[in-house]
């Protein structure tokens, strides 16, 4: 089952650090978002493989939006 990486708050996507197929370790940065003029690294909740990236840089996101999925 895919585990989602969700946005913890409203903001904007700055950078995508991983691509589909990449291996990630738990706590490794997947996406960097900007909220309140601050860069917030969003980390992988579990170790696994990136199945899907659902956002692109510059995109506005709401809290709880799914940013990526880890399989």
């Amino acid at each position, binding site marked *: 089952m895919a585990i989602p990486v969700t946005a913890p708050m409203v903001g904007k996507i700055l950078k995508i650090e991983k691509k589909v197929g990449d291996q990630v370790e738990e706590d490794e940065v997947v996406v960097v978002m900007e909220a309140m003029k*601050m860069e917030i690294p969003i980390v992988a909740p579990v170790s696994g493989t990136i199945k899907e990236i659902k956002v692109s840089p510059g995109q506005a996101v709401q809290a709880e939006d799914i940013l990526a999925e880890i399989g």
Partner: protein
Amino acid sequence: MESAILAGLNGLILGFSNFGWGQAVMILIGSLLLYLGIGKGFEPLLLLPIGFGAILVNIPLAGLMDQGGVLRFFYDTGVLTEIFPILIFIGIGAMTDFQPLLENPKIILLGAAGQFGIFLTLLLALALGFDKLEAVAIGIIGACDGPTSIYVSSKYAPHLLGAVSVAAYSYMSLVPIIQPPIMRLLTTEGEKKIVMGIVKQPVSKTTKILFPVVVTVAASLVAPFGTPLIGMVMLGNLMKECGVVERLKQASENEITNIVTLLLGLSIGATMEAEKFLRVETIIVLVLGLIAIGLDTAVGVLLGKLMCFLTGGKINPLIGAAGISAFPMSARVVQVEGQKYNKKSYLLMHAMSANAGGQIGSIIAAAVMLSVLKGMGMG
């Protein structure tokens, strides 16, 4: 003829012959403030005019603070009358978003805790022999809010205005250095790692419009002599939230705030004449101000720990540190600290709620203090 020429030339060296070591030191201090603003990016909008004002006022014989002098005019019309800080409050209201607080109202308690430093420092200043009104002006540095500090000290202890303002603005910039050690010291490893859930409570436009009006009436009834502060911040906020007076909102946050910031900064710098500023008192004020901010942070974190305990571990006590008015620096500090201990911890929005609470808290604390002093016949 020759003697007239000599006398004229003599006029050119008068500046040098009247130049004392005190003025030289103050020009260096003014230059240091310029360096902090320009080179280090610490509150440049204020430190630059304050620093330059301090340099100008220490030029011998220039008389900028004498009766009729240009800085004296700004100071008398804007600072002594309290008009400048009041105008800045309108701009602050127009720039402040209270949404994080409305989304999470119980967090406002942390904004109240963040004001304890004011009162504890006030007591400390009294113990050190400052008179009551001076102690109030010093304690208010603990509000961590520049305009509030300026407003209160210009009202009660204008002779300390330079020291209080320099302390307030410098320490606000130093929040990322002052707060983390206190936060680390007062929390356990387990508490530092607490992940707080996402707050996603919609706030209606009606609530946002009613909020400034209700706060103004309620807070002003409790602390009527603080109404100029609360009222102006909330007026600015109402203009922001209602969406129908965009021009007034823009003018408040841009033109008015910019002009007043420049004149206010210069006026504060102008209070820093060598004989008034180079005193042991100034150093004590700076030290007490630092203690005030440390105490705010400590009490905020301790209340955070209590809330953590009462909620069965749902609140990360680190967000208590953001219950001060230094917005949004303090909330950012909390986010950075929290993520150091747990990469999956995103405390920013929770800390923003506490921080917005701290902004209101500092103004209300000042308002309460003004009213209490008035009640005691000292206002």
